[in-house]
């Protein structure tokens, strides 16, 4: 069974659990990357729960999937909506300089104070990213953090590649202004 449609048919018509397991295996990593890019660093546990919610929802709603759109676009849309809903309902812990960063800063490496400053600087940048619109945040994290290509991001967000480039360009512009306001740009 090469394509998604064959797997979907096998699951919907014959209740073939191995077909659904194959769909999970195909999409779990990408769905997880998308959800964690929306929820942000430090929320891997929540992103994994959302990823599970997505597959539970898909298993229940698969019979109503009409195939008008690609299965991948459908599942990524569900993932995006569920992650954004969770983010809107829960106040996530603010990014801060964690114990690990402080421990690293206090270690015997050259210039612990400089390391602490670097950690604070990174936290500042991450806070600015948190202030961006959801879709920009997702694009920025997918590109810079999880290392996805423009093509992959376009598929995950369900937009053309040029739109992803535009998101990244505008996000960098907004970040430039925010970082300048905070005096972090040249740090």
């Amino acid at each position, binding site marked *: 069974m090469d394509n998604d449609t064959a797997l979907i048919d096998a699951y919907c018509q014959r209740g073939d659990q191995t077909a659904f397991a194959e769909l999970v295996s195909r999409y779990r990593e990408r769905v997880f990357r998308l959800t*964690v890019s929306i929820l942000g660093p430090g929320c891997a546990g929540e992103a994994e729960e959302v*990823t599970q*919610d997505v597959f539970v929802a898909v298993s229940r709603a698969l019979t109503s999937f009409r195939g008008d759109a690609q299965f991948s676009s459908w599942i990524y849309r569900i993932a995006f909506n569920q992650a954004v809903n969770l983010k809107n309902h829960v106040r996530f812990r603010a990014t801060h300089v964690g114990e690990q960063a402080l421990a690293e800063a206090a270690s015997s490496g050259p210039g612990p104070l400089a390391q602490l400053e670097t950690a604070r600087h990174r936290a500042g940048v991450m806070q600015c990213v948190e202030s961006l619109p959801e879709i920009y945040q997702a694009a920025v994290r997918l590109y810079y953090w999880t290392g996805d290509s423009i093509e992959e991001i376009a598929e995950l967000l369900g937009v053309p590649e040029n739109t992803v480039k535009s998101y990244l360009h505008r996000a960098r512009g907004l970040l430039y202004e925010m970082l300048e306001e905070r005096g972090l740009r040249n740090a």
Partner: protein
Amino acid sequence: MPEREQEQIDRLLRDAMSGPTPKLSPDFEAQLARRMRPPGLTTGARWALILYAAIAVFVTIWATKDVPQLGPWIEQWAVPAAALALVPLSFVWTLRRLERSARIPR
């Protein structure tokens, strides 16, 4: 924004986000399988249902023992006993269906 500033922010972002990316836990599929499995009855509930079915059968036999034989014995008491036994089973089935649909994430 000029190209130079774009590159500067690009470098800042690469540096700030250079940490390790999170991975799914190794037992992700096992956890998902547990969540997708329909909830089973507890042992107590299972025994209560068996007891109820047994009592329903015996009560039906006892209640109809003096009724004159009007037809084959299966119509006399087995059908009402089966109906009595099936009522709680259908109730539990409906309850589980409702529970299942309520758990679908919106």
